[in-house]
């Protein structure tokens, strides 16, 4: 109590701390006004600009990220679809190739068979021709052999029967005419 009284007394003796000095009010007003004008002109707009830029950047970034994600999802979907399509395509191609291969094999088999048949036929024809040739030569040979045989037979039993001779003669002429016609 004493103490506070002494403070008050001291305050009154000097200058009461609650009584303002006009000079200080003026200084305060001037200083505050300067500060206010400076901050209003140079600091606050800049801070707001930075805030706005940052907000825009963050929002823009998020939008871009969303868009990118959407794009990525779309791409993935289309890739998956394409992959499935490609798989189907490959399956189809394989199937086709198999069918085609089977067809080719079939075709080749047919061709081979035809070829074989042709070769067989040709061979058969050649054999036939050769047989014919052999037959022809056989006929001529048979003729000569027969003639030879006959001459032998005729030589040995010429005086036996004249009739027989005539038969042989006729036979030979027949044979001859036959071979003549063949030629």
């Amino acid at each position, binding site marked *: 109590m004493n*103490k506070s009284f*002494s*403070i008050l007394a*001291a*305050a009154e*003796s*000097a*200058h*009461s*701390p*609650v*009584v*303002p*000095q*006009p*000079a*200080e*009010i*003026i*200084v*305060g*007003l001037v*200083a*505050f006004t*300067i*500060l*206010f004008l*400076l*901050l*209003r002109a*140079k*600091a*606050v707009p*800049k*801070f*707001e*600009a*930075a*805030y706005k*830029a*940052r907000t825009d*950047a963050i929002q823009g970034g998020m939008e871009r990220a969303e868009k990118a994600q959407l794009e990525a999802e779309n791409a993935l979907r289309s890739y998956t679809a394409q992959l499935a399509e490609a798989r189907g395509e490959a399956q189809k191609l394989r199937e086709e190739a198999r069918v085609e291969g089977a067809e080719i094999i079939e075709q080749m088999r047919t061709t081979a068979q035809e070829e074989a048949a042709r070769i067989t036929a040709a061979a058969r024809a050649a054999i036939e021709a050769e047989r014919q040739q052999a037959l022809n030569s056989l006929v001529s040979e048979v003729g000569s052999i027969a003639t030879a045989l006959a001459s032998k037979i005729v030589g040995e039993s010429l005086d036996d029967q004249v009739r027989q001779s005539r038969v042989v003669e006729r036979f030979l002429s027949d044979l001859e005419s036959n071979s003549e016609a063949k030629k």
Partner: protein
Amino acid sequence: MSLLLAKADSGFTPPSAADFEFQPIFGNSIYFTKPVFMVFLSVIVISVFFITSARKAAILPSRMQFAGESVYGFVRKTIGEEVIGPEFMRFMPFLFSIFTFVLVNNLFGIFPLLQFPTMSRIGFPISITICTYLVYHFVSVKHKGLLSYLKEICFMPGIPKPVYLILTPVEIATYFITRPLTLAMRLFANMFAGHLLLLIFTLGGEYLLHSGLIFKFMSLFSFGFAIGLTFFEFGIQCLQAYIFTLLSALYIAGALADEH
């Protein structure tokens, strides 16, 4: 305190309001005292710091820009947006100036070498209060019109008539006397008392140091207390800057509100 005085005998002169009086640094003009210089110093410090930190306005802030933005963002969000609402942008330069001006001048109180809170000279709180006072009355008149503003103060709507007998003087006193008076006084008194406390423990400790051996030991406690109180003062200085700005914003918000 009385204990301290008892120990100190009659040799100790306690700090008093006289310690808040400053002689002119040169000449004998009242405009060249330490507090006046400090006020202008605060204007320089604040404007240089915030203008340089805001200059680039980069999306990715430098450390300095981040520091400046943190302070600005604090005032913007907790005081501007939350108290005033959608129209707060118009008042941001004003609120930001008040906050930084009061804060820096308060912090001078514990800043080495300066060590005097400018706001403990009542003239400075009064000058800011005058600004707030003018602003909120001006906004009210502009927003509501002079007559309906006075009518709202004198006859608050939705109150039974006899109550006006008491309420009207109270309302008038609130708007025109109590608000500015408490606004200025609160800041001044907090800074004044805080500085006085620090002075008592520091000067007391110093005095004890020059006394007998036991008292030298006691002075440790006194200095320790002064250091502890310095941290405490730091909190109060920040808080008072916040409260002053918050109340200014509240008065402006009241001026913008349509009805009570």
